[in-house]
């Protein structure tokens, strides 16, 4: 056993030298191996870093496409349509008594008076609701809520994917006739309508059930053409009893040019024509026949910056009526054929958040008489009115207005001095007003 162990001990140095070669070899192998491992790790780390970097675009700088789902007006109109509420309230004062105001028509033009209370008025709290229905239609509704209840003033669709240039609007909507007719009262430049509107169309404007087709051709200048087929329920112009079925039609064209960066003009003719049956010609009468209302509008806007602008606007209207006038008390009928006109011109200058405006209304521009009960009456003084106003817009959503009217449109020798202090406030998502 001891000899064996000695022999073993003897062998150790041998094995050591063998081993040291072997060990060195093995160490070297190990070192080489670890070097290649290191290299592999570094390469793999490089790949991981690359992957991390290339992943960042999806994280945050993502292809979110949220606005596509959100539709036309931003945000998510999928579950909630855009809703806004505009409250138009004013304090009204006049030297004429309330009862007289209601009956204060414009002789020869309209029996409709001024339907306003002296004192605090809530014109309306108007709900505007709109959203895309689907890729084919956008839906709009305008629901004024007054103390007497809610009415659907407008509820219409607009097509969004007809072939180029065409668009159809249908339902109950404000006609594209004229400049002011399609504007909502909270967007008006004054607290009330020009006298020509009250004289020929009435305070509610031409808001009818029907269908409208407009076309915007690809021309070097902006030119919009439109035709309308309407039910014809406007009390002043047509009347629901004039004929069964749609009995009013409209045609209009609006052109626009830019002059430089700061100036734009918009102008064009409009026509409304149809069957009429109305009591508004004169007290105790009923007119049955046809009416055609022509309009030519002109607007000039100069806006060099957001804090300064000037708008000059004017419309001239001519109404032709032909038919029979029934005097209800006498049961006498006489033919009535007449042609009447009127116009307004207004200018508004804006500086910072203030706007100052002036307006002049005149009826029967070219003639000195008007027809009533088959006989010519002299005007004496043509119906006219002058208006001045001052507005302060705290933000785009709130507006205060002070307006004074010197109204001589009732041709009775008296002046109606009117003062308005108006406050218009809006909340919610409201579509932008057109030019």
């Amino acid at each position: 056993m001891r000899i064996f162990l000695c022999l073993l001990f003897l062998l150790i140095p041998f094995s050591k030298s063998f081993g040291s070669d072997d060990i060195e070899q093995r160490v070297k192998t190990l070192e080489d191996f670890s070097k290649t491992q290191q290299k592999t790790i570094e390469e793999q780390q490089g790949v991981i870093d690359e992957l991390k970097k290339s992943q960042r675009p999806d994280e945050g700088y993502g292809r979110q496409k949220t606005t596509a789902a959100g539709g036309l007006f931003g945000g998510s109109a999928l579950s909630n349509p855009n809703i806004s509420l505009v409250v138009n309230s004013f304090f009204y004062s006049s030297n004429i008594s309330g009862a007289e105001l209601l009956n204060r028509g414009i002789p020869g033009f309209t029996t409709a008076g001024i339907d306003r209370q002296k004192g605090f008025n809530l014109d309306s709290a108007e709900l505007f609701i709109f959203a895309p229905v689907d890729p084919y239609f956008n839906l709009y509704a305008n629901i004024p809520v007054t103390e007497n209840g809610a009415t659907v003033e407008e509820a219409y669709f607009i097509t969004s994917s007809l072939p180029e240039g065409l668009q159809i609007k249908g339902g109950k909507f404000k006609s594209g006739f004229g400049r002011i007719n399609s504007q909502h009262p909270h967007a008006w430049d004054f607290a009330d309508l020009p006298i020509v509107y009250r004289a020929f169309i009435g305070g509610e404007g031409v808001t009818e059930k029907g269908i409208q087709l407009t076309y915007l051709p690809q021309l070097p200048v902006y030119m919009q053409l439109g035709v309308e087929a309407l039910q014809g329920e406007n009390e002043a112009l047509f009347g629901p009893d004039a004929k069964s079925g749609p009995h009013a039609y409209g045609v209009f064209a609006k052109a626009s040019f830019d002059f430089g960066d700061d100036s734009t003009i918009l102008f064009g003719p409009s026509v409304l024509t149809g069957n009429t049956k109305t009591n508004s010609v004169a007290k105790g009468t009923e007119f049955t026949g046809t009416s055609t209302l022509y309009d030519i509008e002109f607007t000039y806007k100069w806006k060099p910056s957001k804090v300064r602008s000037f708008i000059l606007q004017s419309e001239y209207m001519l109404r032709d009526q032909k038919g029979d006038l029934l005097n209800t008390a006498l049961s006498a009928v006489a033919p009535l054929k007449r042609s009447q006109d009127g116009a307004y011109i207004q200018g508004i200058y804006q500086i910072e958040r203030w706007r100052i405006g002036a307006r002049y209304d005149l009826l029967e521009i070219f003639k000195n008489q008007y027809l009533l009960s088959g006989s010519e009456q002299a005007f004496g003084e043509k119906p006219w009115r002058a208006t001045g106003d001052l507005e302060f817009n705290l933000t785009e959503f709130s507006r205060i207005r002070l307006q004074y009217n010197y109204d001589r449109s009732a041709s009775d020798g008296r002046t109606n001095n009117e003062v308005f202090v108006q406050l218009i406030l809006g909340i919610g998502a409201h579509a932008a007003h057109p030019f």
Partner: protein
Amino acid sequence: MIFLFSLTTAPVAFGKVNVVATLPWIGSIAKAIGKDKIEVTVLVKPTQDPHYVEAKPSMILAARKADILMYDGLDLEIGYVPLLIESSRNPNIQPGKPGNLDCSQYIMPIEKPLSADRSMGDVHLLGNPHYHFSPENILHVTEGIADALSQIDQDNANFYSANLTEFKDRFKEKQKQWSDKALKLKGKRFIAYHKYFEYLAKDFGFEIVEYVEPKPGIPASAAHIVRLIELIKQKKPDAILTTPYYGLQESESLAKKTGLKVIILPQDVGVTDAVKDWFSFMDQTLLLLD
């Protein structure tokens, strides 16, 4: 009739692609990618405040003829772009179509409030929309614009791709120059007129400590000015940042009262002759901040 319909539904085959961009920087980026194969119309002038643009009939007409409408998004243009799109009667640019390009889908918005209402002023609910001041974001927008152009005009996809590579190369060069500038800007503090420069502050390491507008879109009251003067005395910021057409007078008047410097940064491409395209816009901005 069938011929007419096929003309209207055919993709752009003849003539240049008609690009309508709302803001000047978008038009400039589109031009860099599309070059002579596209026709660019920009709706907003560099001198206009982009928050208050009214849709003129001439803009509606431009949108009518567009193959693609590109806009900043994040509700900056909510006052006119939806109206333009509807009035244009152009089926190509309706939402969801390839001709309707919201550039903000490619960026990472900052300053998205958790909740907001209008008592806070004219707050941007979807985030700060002035991301054209951020190089990293603009790179992604440029890629998106190249994609969109290639989708609309497949025949020239390689051309747009090549121009995108060219843009990226120039971008890499410029980034080196800009990061040198960034070192000098790190830690500086400024007062700004409006919340215009937040992306710039984030990317280049400086801080905006207060605004001349007490709330976005609300002009400064006398009381707020007094508060600002106190703040300036205490915190001693480096300068007041403003743009030439929005807040210049108010900023200069504040500067006179406090002895602070006013730095007038370009609000967009084309404000001056020196700011011809987006690269020179960033160059000029960083130069002025020095």
